[in-house]
């Protein structure tokens, strides 16, 4: 990010192109990507609550948006992002606290598990929610 206008004189860590892509790197980058995505998602949750408090007419508009296919897709992606950030965040706490799971094999496998958990978990939640 050494674009023009960078006024901070402190040294920077090596940038993306200095690394070979590997599972834990995807894991780390997706933690940040989902974190920023969930910041946007907070606006959607806020819109849902505000619409609910505004009355049936406003809620009907938001509900129609939620039931449209872009709305369904967004809700599914949001759920996947929450589950991924949750699982990988739990791993961060386990790394920081008990300090286990640092060996490359376990760390890589754990990254794959987090991705799998996010996809399967989101599928499970929404299939259950629409069935009941």
């Amino acid at each position, binding site marked *: *990010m050494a674009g023009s*206008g*960078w*006024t*901070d*004189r*402190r*040294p920077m860590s090596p940038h993306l192109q200095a690394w070979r892509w590997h599972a834990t790197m995807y894991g780390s980058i997706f933690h*940040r990507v989902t*974190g*920023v995505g*969930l*910041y946007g998602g*907070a*606006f959607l*949750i*806020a819109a*849902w*609550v*505000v619409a*609910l*408090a505004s009355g*049936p007419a406003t*809620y*009907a508009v938001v*509900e129609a948006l*939620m039931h449209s296919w872009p709305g369904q897709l967004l*809700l599914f992606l949001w*759920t996947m992002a*929450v*589950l991924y950030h*949750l699982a990988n*965040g*739990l791993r*961060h*706490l386990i790394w*920081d606290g008990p300090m286990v799971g640092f060996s490359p094999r376990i760390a890589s496998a754990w990254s794959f598990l987090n991705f799998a958990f996010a996809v399967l978990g989101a599928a499970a*939640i*929404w299939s*259950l*929610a*629409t069935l*009941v």
Partner: protein
Amino acid sequence: MTTSTKSVRGLGAAGRGTEHHIRQRVSAIALIFLVPWFLSSVAFAMTAGYSGAIGWMQQSHNALLFILLLSAALYHMRLGLQTVIEDYIGRAGTKQALLIGNVFIVGGIYVVTLLSVLKLWLGNAA
């Protein structure tokens, strides 16, 4: 690849950050408990129609947990985006503007959502 001492002196850590790190972790621990409740609960409220969603929010434990979730999640998200801004925005002025904007946006969402939850919950008592 070496850097002379004189060029790095005074350019290291900002002298703070431990508190930020700890607060990020503490809010994360709260969210470990609140997010599973939220996902399993709100997905059903969202598919229950207007009256179903109202009924869900008017149950005191749901309103209470929703407020706890909002508090922990919005705080966690303000700290997180602050780090992202500090990492990628190096232009003085722009960075400070975004950092202030981050605080205002999160504060705005918090007040608006909190008021909505309270309105819905109090609607039950009325």
